[in-house]
């Protein structure tokens, strides 16, 4: 998965979750970063992950006046702290 793929997939996911058109979701920023573990610092319930520093992207999207954070690397996409929970997409 490329950075662009991850961003597009994140926009689609957020639109679906919020029940809005994809065009209403705007990309605020996409930044390369080091995550603390292999679940990108966003482990879902009951999940354990390798404690290895993992390179990926932080994707900030804006919709309905709120900012949402997705985290991705070349193999996975996660939604960080959406209504208090992490989700593996």
């Amino acid at each position, binding site marked *: 998965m490329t950075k662009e793929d991850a961003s597009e997939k994140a926009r689609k996911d957020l639109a679906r979750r919020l029940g809005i058109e994809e065009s209403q979701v705007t990309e605020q920023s996409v930044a390369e970063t080091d995550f*603390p*573990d292999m679940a990108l*610092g966003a*482990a879902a319930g009951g999940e*354990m992950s390798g*404690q290895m*520093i993992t390179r990926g992207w932080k994707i900030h999207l804006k919709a309905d006046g709120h900012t949402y954070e997705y985290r991705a690397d070349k193999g996975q996409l996660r939604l960080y702290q959406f209504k208090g929970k992490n989700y593996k997409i």
Partner: protein
Amino acid sequence: MNRNNFLPHVALALVLILVAAFAGQLRRWQKEWKHRVQIIPAEDKRRSPINNVEAAPYENRGFGAPEVLVKFRQGVNEEAIERITLGLHDRVEDEIESVPGLDAIDDLDDKTAEAVAAQYRGLPEVEYAEAVFEISADDFDSAGSPITPRDPRFSEQWALFNDGSRGGTTGADISATHAWTVTTGSDKVVVAVLDSGVDYTHSDLASNMWIRPNSVDPYEDRDLGTIQDLHGYNAVENSADPMDDNGHGTHCAGIIGAEGGNDIGIAGVNWKVQIMPLKFMNAGGYGTTKDAIEAINYVIDRKKAGVNVRVISASWGSTQKSRALEDVIRKAYEADILFVAASGNASTNNDRSPHYPSSYNVPNVVSVAALDRNDQLASFSNYGLKSVAIAAPGVDILSTWLGDEYEEKSGTSMATPVVAGVAALISANEPKITVDQLRSRLLAAVDPLNSLKGKVVSGGRINAAKALGTK
């Protein structure tokens, strides 16, 4: 006193003193003579490699230095000590005068020092007994000179030998080259790498992978039936194939036991060991507590079946607590298996915000923080004066990767197998060591660091040479 009696009294006193002195010397001669002509029992002669020198003075038998130090309890006299040592086919080589009751004892047959010490520990007359460690500066100058492996990329393994290159600090390492003068590991020691699996075909790992011996039956799971576990276990797919599809587990395995001295790639902390791969994390590098529990359950089962698993290396975790995971780790403790776990990479204090499984209060858990090549706590590493036991190198660590490759990775994931590897070295050197002793030894075998004051329980970086009693 009558003046006329004075001279006879003085003469009598002098005679008594001379007699006493002569008697003392006579006793010493007698003891020495006894040692020199000591007869080895016939049954021992058959199995002893020293048959042909039985009548020679002990100085000429080629016996080494005393093997055990035994402290006899107060009130156990010299005669009793002599009777005990002769009964065990040993001899007192020297009395340590400064500590009453402490004797250096030489074994006259081919038992290991630890076995001799164990014999004495079982006696009511003995307060303690311990094998003699060979600690001397001469060790490093002659036969014990630091050992550098032939592996071509060893110079990049700063964790094992830090020469100060790439901005590092000379000596900020685990003293592996000194440790290897004692042992480079043993294929009798099994370390379970509980991870994303291991590429067991990697050319630097293949010869150190565990293969289930014929004497051990295939794994039987009540729900899954028989699993022909040739190399380990895959809890993700409930299969016998723990091949790694991520790389993380292969990296950790190489740190513990990439074959040393084989002219290929790198050297592990152990040049020779048996790595049992277990896969519970998927290609993304994450997995479920349920699969982790299944894999630990497998390890305990194999141990009970006779496989000498001494250590589980667990380079993973999360902040979510699982009572079931804690329970199965406790079962591993009961099976005498050490559980070495990553402290986590959130730069946080585990005393306040626990990270599991490393924060479980179970006696076999050793939580590991990460250091950089300058002996500084890694910027990402979790710490905890009460909950993180020890630190080890964990930044820019070169190790094996998928596709017969090598990569540098960072994390407490990388520090964890360093400590697991040292635990395996200790187990190779002292096969009978218990899990409690193993954990205590690790925590005592550190180089104290200012950067770790108030950060980890032991206050230091693991030192493999100290763990083996060489430095």
